[in-house]
């Protein structure tokens, strides 16, 4: 009888222990899940956002391959060169946004000439290391007549994602393919990434 009682006591203790362990594991899982969830980005639509970019092509009255500042404020995207009037695009007119990446040789023409002048193919070895990765941001927008425009910007690596997030937070559609009818946002196809291979 005593033995039976002891056995029952032992079983009850193990059940309580198991329940406690389960409870602890459950609470741990919940807390980990809570930590993993990022808070939704809170962007003030009127706050000024600026980033240094290179305008590759597309904006009206702006030279191709020129550096400047891309800023977003009050539902307007503006590209401003130093000492020149800026080009503006209304956020409401942006229909699509695509992000990509590209690798380019650095140094421009002086570097090119230097590499060409280097003896014993030294320039080629330099080329092997003298490249840098960039993000490219492609905007598709419409003008007042409904005509489709495209603008391409080159940003330092990593800043493309920031700019994309900023634009998305302000209501710009992301990579909506025309076939999807605008309902299903589809991620943009990978841009030229063969440089990485």
């Amino acid at each position, binding site marked *: 009888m005593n033995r039976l009682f002891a056995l029952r006591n032992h079983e009850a203790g193990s059940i309580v222990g198991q329940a406690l362990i389960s409870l602890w594991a459950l609470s741990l899982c919940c807390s980990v899940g809570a930590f993993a969830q990022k808070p939704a980005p809170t962007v003030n639509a009127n706050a000024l956002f600026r980033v240094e970019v290179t305008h*590759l*092509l597309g904006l009206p009255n702006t030279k191709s391959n020129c550096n400047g500042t891309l800023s977003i404020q009050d539902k307007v995207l503006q590209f401003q060169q130093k000492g020149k009037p800026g080009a503006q695009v209304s956020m409401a007119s942006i229909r699509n946004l695509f992000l990509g990446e590209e690798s380019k040789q650095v140094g421009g023409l002086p570097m090119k000439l230097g590499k060409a002048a280097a003896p014993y193919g030294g320039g080629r070895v330099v080329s092997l290391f003298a490249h840098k990765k960039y993000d490219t941001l492609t905007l598709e927008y419409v003008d007042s007549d409904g*005509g489709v425009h495209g*603008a391409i910007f080159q940003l330092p690596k990593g800043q493309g994602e920031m700019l994309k997030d900023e634009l998305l937070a302000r209501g710009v559609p992301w990579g909506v393919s025309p076939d999807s009818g605008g309902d299903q946002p589809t991620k943009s196809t990978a*841009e*030229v990434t063969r440089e990485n291979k």
Partner: protein
Amino acid sequence: MKTSKRKLWFIWAAAIVAMVVPGQVLSQTAAVKSSNGSGGSAPQWTVQVEKVDSGHLDLAHSFQLAIYENLLEELNKTKKFKAVLREGDRKASEVPSLLLLKTTVVKYTPGSETRRAVTTVSGATKLTVRTQLLTRGGKIVVDRTVNGNVRFFGSNLRATHNLARNIASAIKKANVATVQASYRDTQPPNLNADGAQ
């Protein structure tokens, strides 16, 4: 005395003939040229450029929009068209003599600027497109397959610039008389060649 007078008269007559005849011949040639050529008197068409169709190829959006933008710029440079309109432009509906330019990517080889710089012989970015100039009724007026490459110097996007230049050049070389004839075939009978009622 008599012979010298006759000589003088003969020289005077010859001088008049020499002055008048070449002028008449030249004016005739100019008139022929102006009637045959596609210069000032030829009716000018308005072209609407449609966005590039990448077909089944995985062409980056930046490339598609770069071809589109470069094409608009290069077609403007040719001065063959009264106006170059963008896709979706509402003004197109008011234009009587409108041609549509469709571009479909047939082949695309993504290159690498670094590989070009290191090896010289590999890493070329190649684009092949089929470009069609159509009337509103869908009749094909010009149909060409055009290439655009970047083999040695320049970024990958430069291939789009070269391609657009080649397309504009192909359209420029296309027989304008054929374009006019084809266009006339598609016009309602109450419209003349200029499209004016």
